[in-house]
Structures are given as structure tokens and as C-alpha cells.
């Protein structure tokens, strides 16, 4: 313990002329409650200065402190023999063969995108790229998970179009392929869209660098863009509900410059691989404040920064503004003093500046000067780690319980054939080609399976292995049953990865929920996290990091709970990869896995019967694991021609997608299938549209059929031979004595036109300024 008189002398800090007095109203404006403010005063032994109040406000925001989620996140499995870096760093890192490692992370940029879709989404991509290349990894792929309100609303179309353009323009310019993603639409996202961006990077394991400041006397350098007044308090903005006033927050949205990002990327990787620096961190949420305080806390040292030395875009910026700015494309580097000249030389080659702004100290204090005045002096470790932690009440909401226990839609549907066409026309299920054609998916010349596949797959030049990756979440299932929904999100991601032939390796998650101070929201959060934990334990896929995004609420209420799972998987030999779509006529079609025919939470009930409810099928994690093992083994033995996982829309949608979902196949492949013996006791609508997990549709060359069956039997995976791929242009299914048949050309048209048809009004939306 430091004696209080001593603390008072060490922690002296002054207000600057022009600083507003720290009043209770100002404290509230900074989103700090009484308990938190009391702890600050106790920590400092005095009232904070205005600058310090800003620093605490940012670092103790939900976004930076995880104060409502920490107690739950502790339960995630984070260890494993292949884990090089778990949660707590800029990105998680897993070991790969041949000396390689993969760094990956997902993060949300929801609130900025709600008020300024283009820049909000673009800077979301920029931030996640920096999280990955500051680990020493070269970004090799981007993915994203997006949610909007229904496209019938002009504002939702405007947000959707703007976000897609923002995501695309940024990644395209930096030159990182967007390999996949998901887009969903539901009324709950009107007013609060979700924009989750994931980046995957590759590094030699020996080049891994961690963001921990070391070495008393080492220099802090600000690298990259100058600091402006944009994005001040972005972290706090992310930590409150959206309201009618949020539009006024538009100036808090940062502006992206992907060209500078590309230069930063190249310069950072060069600095890291040539061993010139000690540590590096993105100035992301809460900018200079969080990057410097977090690096110091990780290294167990103090830092001293002089904000007067930070290059700014505008004159007369205050220390408060400089510390809290979220101007993009900036890095903080820690380096030994005698390396500074070399670092500046490398940066200059990339047209960047590197400016010394402070140093590492031995007293553990986070100290900020502005010229000769000390404007903040805070115990560094406590600043980062001693924010009060909350254990909110959790109770299932009445509405969710009622919806789950309703067993049947009001009106049953007679036209089960037309139902498939309705589902394929539903933007949640329809082809996302309109989206991914705006993303460069082939730059870096390593894309083995492009967007539109179950998972994206890349090769690694010079290596034998390949990497598969996906993002998934079915929020309707999470809303109805958060625990099973959390399991289902991980299971679907793992299935998607395994369908390409890759073994699931690990997870990064982006947990998007409403206000955690509401018991029904915290219940969703806690239960979904428990489901994710259980699934990850069974699959052996540790959670290596991610992001929690709370307060996703608009005046209309909370969003559907959306715990997005980002997953990477390993193909031991990249040439073993399996595509998602029918490949050749006369190939044999098999269905893997059984169905109970349960329709609770199904897209069929939601979209065709207009009924969101019922009890979704429970996720059988052991069956999922067996299915994954089969898919990987079958791919490695080169038995498969295609594999497509069964998820939203059920078996009928899976078969239709396998037939017509290949985006650039000019011809049309169908199938003639007899499902009579598949689930004889299940009603026809359940067979066609039930969404039981642990299932996939695979095809193989006729000569491999016996080996496929034998392998499935050996691994305990139920296997049913349904028929053959046909070139006659029809998809025909026989179920329960009925014959359903669709023209593949018609299905393809519906599937591929659903989103473009709804988006053809976008230019009008823009013109009228919605």
C-alpha cells in the first residue's frame, strides 16, 4: 500500500484553463455512475481532472472494460495445445503446420454504422485489419456478419447498401479478399443494424509480437495518420442505446482512409519482421488512451505521454481531445531509443511519420503531460483492470417464453412446393451474390473456395495446408432458446468448415445483445454464452478472443440476440477441399444425419407461415462432432464431389442450394431423389423444412458410394442414399407418397434475383435522402 500522503504527491495533476469543472452532471454525461466515480476518487486520493474524467469514461465504458460481460466470459474454454495466444490481446493466435500460425478476430461496429453506414462499416473493417497485423500477421482474408431490418423499408435498404459499399471499398483498397460472411434481415434490427467484421491473418509463429510495453526508458511513437477531432468518445457511444438523438452523434463516427491503412500495414509488418520494435497496438476504440494504458498494464510498467508532441490535424486540440480521438489509421509503437531513427526511416519509405510522444516509466503510473503541465496521473494497472464488475440479474423474458411454448403456427400451409420458392426468395436465405460481388474476393490470388461456399478456403503460398473460415449465427434460434441457439451457432460454423474438408480449429465471437442491465437481455447473454462454451468444449475449438457489443437497442426495443461465431479450420492438404454445389451428373446423393422433423424456430414457420415461435430442435453436440469427423475423413480420402450443410430452411433448401447455388455455373444441375425411407415417421413438412442440425447433403462419384457408406457406418453417422444428380434441369423429391418437382432454372432465378430485385430502388432511396 502506498501511504495516502505519498499517493497525493505522486498523483498530482492539474486542470488546464478552459477545462470545465468536474460536476456531478458532467460525471453523468461521461456515463460513470456513483459507484464508479467513488472508486475513481478513492484510487486517485482526490477528484479527477477533466482530462482524467475523459480517460476513465473511455476505459470504463462497456466497450473497453467488459464490466457487464467479464463474469460470463470467464467460462469460455480458451486453452488447447494449438493455442499460441488466447483472449486479451489484439487478436487470438492458433498454431498451424510448417511453422505458420493464424491470427484472427471479429469485432462489431454497430452503432457507428447505424448513423453513418458507409464510414461506420469501412472503419469497422479498418479496425479489425489493424488488430490482426499488429500481431505480426499479414491479413489474408476478411469476413463479415451483417444484420438489417427488412428490405421493404427504404431506410433499411439505405443502410444495407451503404454498409456493403463501405465494407467493400475499404477491404478492396487495402487488398485483402473478402472470403465470406452472412447477411440477415429481421424486424428487430430496424434502427440498430449489426456490422461485425472478421479478419484472418497469417504469420510465421516466430514473428508473433504481443502488445505489452517493456523496458523502462523505451520510447512511445505515434505512427500513421494525424490525430483529429473525429470519433471522440466513440467507445462511450458504443456503450449506450441508440435513440432519436443518435443522429447527432454522426460527428463521432470516424472517417476511414484505406490507402493510409495499406501503408501502415506494410510498414508495421516490416518493422515487426525486422525486429525493430518492442510492442505495437492500434489506436482503436478510445484511441491513444486505451492503446497506451493497455500496453503499459500488460507489461506491468507505467507510461508518460506528452500530448503536445502528438501530431494533430487541427490547432489547439486539448489533451482531452487528443487522448480520446478515434481518428483512424494510427498506431502506437514501443521501441528502444536507439532504434527510433531506423523506425522513422522505414516509415518514411511508406510515406508515414513516426513521432516520439512519450516513454515507458518504472512507477506504474499512467501519466499525461501537455507541455509542462501534468494533466492526468492515474495508477495504470488499476485504470485498466479495476473498473467495477457487475453481475446483473438474469431472467427469461415473458415474451420469449410464451413464443417458445406456442407449439403451432395459426395457419398450416398446403402448398409445400411453393413454400420452397418462397424460402429461396427470402433475403435471409437467397443468394448473397449482390453483396459479395461488391467485395474483391480473389486479390492475393489464393482463393480456393470463394464466397457462396459453405466456408471460404484459401491456400498459403509455399505451404501444403489450407485454411477454411466462416461466420455464422441463427438469431431466431437464439431468441427462442438462447442456450440451444448458442450451441447451434457454433455447430453451424463447425459444420460449414467441415463441409469443405477442414477440421475446426478455434473460434472468435462477436456477442451482440441489447442492454445488459435488463434481466431478459442478460439472461439471453448468459445462456447463449453457456451454449457457446459447451459446444466449443465438445468440438475442441477454444475461444481465442472476440468482442461484446451491448446496448444494441433502438426506440423500438432490443435486437434479436446475435452471438456471431467466427471460426477457422485447417485443411491438411489444401487440394483436398470440397465444394458446396453439385458437381457432375450421375453423382450419388446422400443425406447425412437424422431428422426429428421439429419445426420450432424454422425459417419455414417464420417466412411461410408467418410464425416466429416454437421450441427449436436441441443440438446434439456428439452427433455434430461425428459428422465433422466424417466430412474431414471423407475429404482426405477424396471420396466427395460436394458437401453442403443443412441449416436455415431445412433439407429442401439445402438440396436446392446444392443444385442451383453455384453462382457462376452456366448450366443447371438438378437431382432425382426419393426420401421415402429417410424419416418415414416424420410429416412431410418436417422432412422438407425441419432444421435439425448435425446434417449435410453430400455427393460422390458412383464408384465411391460403397466407401462413403462404410465410412459413415464406421464413424457412427446416419447415412441415407437419396438418389442421383441429374442434368435434366429438374429437382425432384419424393416424400411421403408425394412427388415435388421444381425447374432448376426457375429456382435459380428466384434464388439469385431475390436481393437485387429488392435493391433496385436503392438509388431512389439515396436521392430522397432516407
Amino acid at each position, binding site marked *: 500500500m502506498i501511504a495516502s500522503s505519498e499517493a497525493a504527491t505522486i498523483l498530482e495533476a492539474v486542470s488546464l484553463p478552459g477545462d470545465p469543472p468536474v460536476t456531478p452532471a458532467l460525471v453523468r454525461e461521461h456515463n460513470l455512475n456513483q459507484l464508479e466515480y467513488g472508486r475513481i476518487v478513492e484510487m486517485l486520493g482526490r477528484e479527477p481532472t477533466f482530462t482524467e474524467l475523459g480517460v476513465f469514461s473511455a476505459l470504463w465504458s462497456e466497450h473497453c472494460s467488459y464490466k457487464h460481460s467479464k463474469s460470463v466470459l470467464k467460462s469460455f474454454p480458451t486453452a488447447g495445445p494449438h493455442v499460441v495466444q488466447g483472449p486479451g490481446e489484439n487478436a487470438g493466435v492458433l498454431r498451424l503446420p510448417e511453422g505458420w500460425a493464424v491470427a484472427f478476430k471479429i469485432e462489431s461496429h454497430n452503432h457507428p454504422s447505424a448513423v453513418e453506414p458507409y464510414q461506420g462499416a469501412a472503419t469497422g473493417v479498418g479496425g479489425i485489419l489493424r488488430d490482426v497485423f499488429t500481431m505480426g500477421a499479414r491479413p489474408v482474408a476478411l469476413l463479415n456478419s451483417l444484420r438489417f431490418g427488412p428490405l421493404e423499408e427504404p431506410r433499411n435498404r439505405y443502410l444495407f447498401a451503404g454498409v456493403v459499399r463501405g465494407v467493400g471499398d475499404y477491404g478492396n483498397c487495402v487488398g485483402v479478399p473478402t472470403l465470406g460472411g452472412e447477411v440477415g434481415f429481421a424486424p428487430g434490427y430496424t434502427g440498430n443494424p449489426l456490422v461485425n467484421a472478421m479478419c484472418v491473418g497469417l504469420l510465421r509463429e516466430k514473428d508473433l509480437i504481443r502488445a505489452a510495453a517493456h523496458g523502462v526508458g523505451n520510447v512511445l511513437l505515434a505512427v500513421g495518420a494525424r490525430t483529429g477531432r473525429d470519433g471522440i468518445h466513440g467507445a462511450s457511444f458504443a456503450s449506450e442505446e441508440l435513440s432519436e438523438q443518435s443522429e447527432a452523434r454522426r460527428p463521432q463516427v470516424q472517417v476511414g482512409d484505406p490507402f493510409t491503412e495499406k501503408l501502415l500495414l506494410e510498414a508495421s509488418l516490416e518493422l515487426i519482421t525486422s525486429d525493430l520494435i518492442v510492442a505495437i497496438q492500434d489506436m482503436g476504440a478510445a484511441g491513444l488512451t486505451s492503446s497506451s494504458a493497455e500496453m503499459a498494464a500488460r507489461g506491468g510498467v507505467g507510461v508518460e505521454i506528452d500530448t503536445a508532441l502528438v501530431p494533430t490535424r487541427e490547432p489547439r486540440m486539448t489533451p482531452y481531445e487528443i487522448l480520446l480521438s478515434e481518428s483512424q489509421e494510427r498506431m502506437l509503437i514501443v521501441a528502444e531509443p536507439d532504434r527510433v531513427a531506423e523506425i522513422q526511416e522505414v516509415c518514411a519509405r511508406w510515406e508515414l511519420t513516426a513521432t516520439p510522444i512519450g516513454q515507458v516509466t518504472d512507477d506504474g503510473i499512467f501519466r499525461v503531460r501537455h507541455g509542462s503541465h501534468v494533466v492526468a496521473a492515474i495508477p495504470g494497472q488499476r485504470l485498466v483492470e479495476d473498473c467495477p464488475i457487475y453481475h446483473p440479474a438474469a431472467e427469461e423474458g415473458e415474451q420469449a417464453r410464451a413464443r417458445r411454448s406456442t407449439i403451432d403456427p395459426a395457419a398450416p400451409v398446403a402448398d409445400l412446393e411453393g413454400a420452397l420458392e418462397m424460402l429461396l426468395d427470402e433475403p435471409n436465405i437467397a443468394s448473397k451474390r449482390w453483396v459479395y*460481388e*461488391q467485395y474483391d474476393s480473389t486479390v492475393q490470388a489464393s482463393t480456393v473456395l470463394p464466397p457462396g461456399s459453405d466456408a471460404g478456403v484459401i491456400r498459403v503460398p509455399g505451404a501444403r495446408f489450407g485454411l477454411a473460415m466462416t461466420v455464422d449465427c441463427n438469431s431466431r434460434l437464439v431468441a427462442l432458446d438462447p442456450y440451444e441457439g448458442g450451441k447451434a451457432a457454433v455447430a453451424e460454423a463447425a459444420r460449414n468448415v467441415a463441409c469443405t474438408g477442414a477440421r475446426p480449429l478455434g473460434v472468435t465471437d462477436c456477442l451482440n445483445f441489447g442492454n445488459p442491465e435488463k434481466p431478459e437481455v442478460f439472461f439471453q447473454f448468459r445462456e447463449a454464452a453457456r451454449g457457446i462454451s459447451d459446444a466449443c468444449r465438445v468440438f475442441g475449438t477454444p475461444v481465442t478472443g472476440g468482442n461484446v457489443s451491448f446496448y444494441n437497442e433502438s426506440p423500438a426495443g432490443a435486437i434479436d440476440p446475435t452471438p456471431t461465431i467466427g471460426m477457422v479450420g485447417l485443411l491438411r492438404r489444401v487440394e483436398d477441399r470440397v465444394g458446396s454445389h453439385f458437381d457432375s451428373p450421375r453423382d450419388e446423393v446422400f443425406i447425412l444425419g437424422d431428422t426429428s422433423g421439429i419445426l420450432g424456430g424454422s425459417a419455414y414457420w417464420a417466412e411461410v407461415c408467418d410464425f416466429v415461435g416454437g421450441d427449436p430442435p436441441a443440438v446434439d453436440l456428439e452427433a455434430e462432432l461425428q459428422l465433422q469427423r466424417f466430412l474431414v475423413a471423407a475429404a482426405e480420402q477424396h471420396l466427395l464431389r460436394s458437401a453442403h450443410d443443412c441449416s436455415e430452411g431445412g433439407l429442401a433448401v439445402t438440396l436446392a442450394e446444392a443444385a442451383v447455388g453455384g453462382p457462376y455455373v452456366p448450366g443447371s444441375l438438378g437431382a432425382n431423389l426419393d426420401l421415402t425411407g429417410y424419416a418415414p415417421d416424420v410429416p412431410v413438412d418436417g422432412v422438407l423444412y425441419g432444421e435439425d442440425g448435425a446434417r449435410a447433403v453430400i455427393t460422390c462419384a458412383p464408384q465411391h458410394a460403397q466407401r462413403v457408406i462404410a465410412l459413415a457406418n464406421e464413424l457412427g453417422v446416419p447415412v441415407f442414399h437419396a438418389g442421383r444428380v441429374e442434368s435434366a434441369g429438374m429437382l425432384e423429391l419424393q416424400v411421403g407418397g408425394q412427388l415435388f418437382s421444381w425447374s432448376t432454372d426457375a429456382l435459380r432465378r428466384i434464388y439469385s434475383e431475390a436481393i437485387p430485385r429488392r435493391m433496385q430502388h436503392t438509388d431512389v432511396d439515396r436521392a430522397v435522402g432516407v
Partner: protein
Amino acid sequence: MPRVAVVRFPGSNCDFDALRAAESVGADAYFVWHREAELRGADAVILPGGFSYGDYLRSGAIARFSPVMQAVQAHAAAGGPVLGICNGFQILCEAHLLPGALMRNAGLSFVSKPVDVIVERTDTAFTCDYEPGSRLRLPVAHGEGRFVAAPETLRMLEAEDQVVLRYVAATERSPFQPNPNGSANHIAGICNAEGNVVGIMPHPERAADRLLGLTGGSGFFTSLVTSHQHSSN
């Protein structure tokens, strides 16, 4: 083996791809930074794709003033082969090494997808390994790829056989629009009157490997080797 200089501008992002594609056919490929004034004995030059200087003004508009472009001009004037891919094509037009200009796509959106093209000119250093009329499937990925030129320039390009690549439909029944960006006369790539400077929007370097599903682009790089052997014999 030919020495192939791949020019890197700040913001180039297909530089490694082009380098690897050239290396894969045995060429002695190396990077030249935009500030360098020398091409270091290059037999051929590739200007790769990307967003040189961010392309905030007009694609390629700033890159043309890079010091290295004087060397590229001199190399081209001496009859040396130059290939501009995507942003490289834009830079060649801005530098007046090729006629016409590349404008924002007709659909106003970035377009990334495989397209089908026909090779119409097979006597250049980059296309001599193709049969005339060969159909290739190559990826495009650009926001500003709509080729435009004055009517008399277009007439000249057609009359003088300067169209190297043209977008075509994959099959008669193909449900896809052949022309991804609204280019005049479906033009995907052209050459100068002498035939040594070639600019194309599609990315052959991304379609030169069986593993990536497309192999039609490898001919651009094998042609370099073939034409070099020819000229050194």
C-alpha cells in the same frame, strides 16, 4: 529467362500476385519501387493492380507522375513490352501510353466476379501463347473499369486490331451479362499501335493455378517467356 520488373506504387495490392505468377513460369521477376528511376535491365514491365495513392482523385492519375514512370515511358518508347493489369491499365491510360480512359462502372458499384473474354490479338508479348479467338475465364475486380474513348479512337482501335481482350457470354444460354462494367464495344483490354504496351482489366495473375479453379490466365505469363526466347534467338 526474361527479367520482369513489377512496379510497386504505394497502394499497389496485386504486386505479389503478379510477381508470383511471373516467377511460376520461370521468369526472373523483381519489384521496382515507384521512386526508383531505373528498371534495372528489365526485359518486360508489369504495372500491377491496386489503388495507387488510394486513387482518391482519379484512378492512376497520381501514379503517372511517379519517378518510375519516366523509365517506363522510355522502356515503352524503345519497344519494350509493358503490361498494365487493372489499376496498371488505368495508369497506362493516364500516362497516355494507351488511348482512352477507364471510368466508373456502369452499375456504379465495384464488380468482383469471373468473366469470360475472348483473345483477339495474339501477336503481343503477353498473348502470343494463345490461339486467336481463345475463350478465357478470368476474374475482374474493379470499380472503374468501363473503357471509354472518342468515337474516332474506338474506330481506330477496331480498325487497327488493337483490341486484345473482349468480354463475351460464356454460352448462348448463359444467364449472366457478359460485360461487367459497360465498356465501349465490350472492350476488356487493348494495346498501343505498336503492340508492345498492353492494358487489361481482368486479372490473369489470379487465374494461373488449377487450385484456384481458373487457369486461363497463365498464358499471359508463359507468353512473356515465349516471346523473350523468340526475340533473343
